[in-house]
């Protein structure tokens, strides 16, 4: 267990991350377009479009403009979706079609490094995407379209990184389990998209059952923590919950991922 967790800091895991980063930077113009365009589209569609009808939302006993409400939610949504999709589709393609993992495993890289490399790369990429979303939010604020405090935004990027590690470890679990890429629709449509929408990202859920379920939902705490920082209000408890739940997910999921991937990749 300990060697598996410390493998995150091994040079082999960094070599895997470096390889993915090099590929990504080769295609930077297409790689960074989606994270820049998606928040613009969402801010325009949900914030200005839908927000024009909604106006303000009651959040923690005060009225908050809808655009200000969804801006932190979008940051949390980006964290979740980017990490999940990277560890679902991109990792599956590298494992199954490109045989990148098999090539790496003939070197001094071991499967635990491949797993951590995938987790860390997904988290790094997510953090970069979150930074791009932050820039978009800053531009909206500059034009007076958004009323949020962005001064603490850089301090949130480490939180994004930690949460993205946990989300990508969850994504790798499905990558290890699904037989073909077509089966990826099952976790995506049955878990990822529903969870992304019912976690307080784009609208609040006040039903007692939803609130109880969201107490153990790291994405909900991420959205509420970001909202607390950017809109104002208590954020510490939510950010602590993100850290605790992320640590728990990593401690459980990474060993499980490794066990399942050992069977899948090595046949053991």
């Amino acid at each position, binding site marked *: 267990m300990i060697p598996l967790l410390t493998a995150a800091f091994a040079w082999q895991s960094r070599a895997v991350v470096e*390889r993915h980063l*090099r*590929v990504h930077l080769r295609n930077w113009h297409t790689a960074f377009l989606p994270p820049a365009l998606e928040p613009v589209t969402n801010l325009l569609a949900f914030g200005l479009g839908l927000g024009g009808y909604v106006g303000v939302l009651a959040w923690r006993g005060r009225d908050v403009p809808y655009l200000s409400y969804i801006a932190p939610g979008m940051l949390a949504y980006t964290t979740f979706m980017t990490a999940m999709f990277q560890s679902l589709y991109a990792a599956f393609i590298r494992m199954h079609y490109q045989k*990148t993992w098999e090539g790496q495993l*003939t070197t*001094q890289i071991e499967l635990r490094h491949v797993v951590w490399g995938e987790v860390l790369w997904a988290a790094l990429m997510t953090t970069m995407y979150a930074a791009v979303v932050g820039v978009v939010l800053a531009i909206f604020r500059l034009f007076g379209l958004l009323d949020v405090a962005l001064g603490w935004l850089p301090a949130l990027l480490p939180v994004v990184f930690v949460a993205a590690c946990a989300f990508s470890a969850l994504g790798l679990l499905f990558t290890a389990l699904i037989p073909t890429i077509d089966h990826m629709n099952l976790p995506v449509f049955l878990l990822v998209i529903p969870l992304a929408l019912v976690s307080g990202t784009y609208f609040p859920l006040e039903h007692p059952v939803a609130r109880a379920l969201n107490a153990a939902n790291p994405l909900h705490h991420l959205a509420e923590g970001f909202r607390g920082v950017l809109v104002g209000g208590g954020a510490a408890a939510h950010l602590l919950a993100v850290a605790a739940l992320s640590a728990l997910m990593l401690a459980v999921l990474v060993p499980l991922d490794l066990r399942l991937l050992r069977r899948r990749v090595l*046949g053991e």
Partner: protein
Amino acid sequence: MTPLLEARQLVKSLGGRRVVDGVDVQCHRGEILGLLGPNGAGKTTTLRMLYGFLRPDGGTIRFDGVDAGAELAHAKRHLGVCTQDDTFDGDFTVRDNLRIAARYFRPAVSALAARVDELLDRFGLRPYAAMRPDALSGGFKRRLMIARALVHRPRLLFLDEPTTGLDPQARMAVWDLVDGLRAEGLAIVLTTHYMDEAERLSDALTVLAQGRVVAHGTPKSVLGDALGEHVVIVPAAAAEAAGVAPWLAARGLDAPVGVLGDWHLPLRADTLADFARAFPGLRYEVRAPTLDDLFLKLAVA
């Protein structure tokens, strides 16, 4: 002389089936060891254990006298692996494939740029250095795979069916490269389905069947031990041929192997003389045994 690679009593089960069952392997510096056997014999699984891809369920692997299981990362620094499937990185050019592969080893490869240039020239890849591997022909893809396996200057190279699917010209080009590597003192473990390849390249053969070693030694001694000195080819439709199988059975010899209307009978020199006396009217051909005969025998067994 201490073997560079020495594996003893390797055991591995996959999917509840014992795929490798007590296999011993030895390979010395400057030697090519051919690992042979019919499909499902356990060649690739054995190879994968030897290069650290799979963990043996039992047995030991020593690299240069050191337990490779305890010092896996250290041992793997000295191993080069060319897998059966192409596993090069399609996201990078030919040159960058070599560069990226080198980054998966520590201590870092010294004078990497010069090493990459050296391999591009040696393997005839220089004209394709800026291309993606997918654009290469089958022969040059294999060259890239072998070059990539050598980028960190390993001492032991594993080649898993390196010429499968190549045309004869490309196969022979790969043979020349492999032969040159042996001449430089590299130890090479090779699996192949091509018997001519194994006979031409291997200094020693280890033959596997159903996960066990059934023969080991030089190609000539392996054939002699397993088959005898001669193979007699008898037309199965010949009048006297009907008596051949009972004659073999009466002497406790294997039943003849049927190939395209002929029977192939591996026989020792003294048995051949008895055979000639027993079937004076039978027309047959006698030739030296090849590894194809050994494979046929193992496959039938």
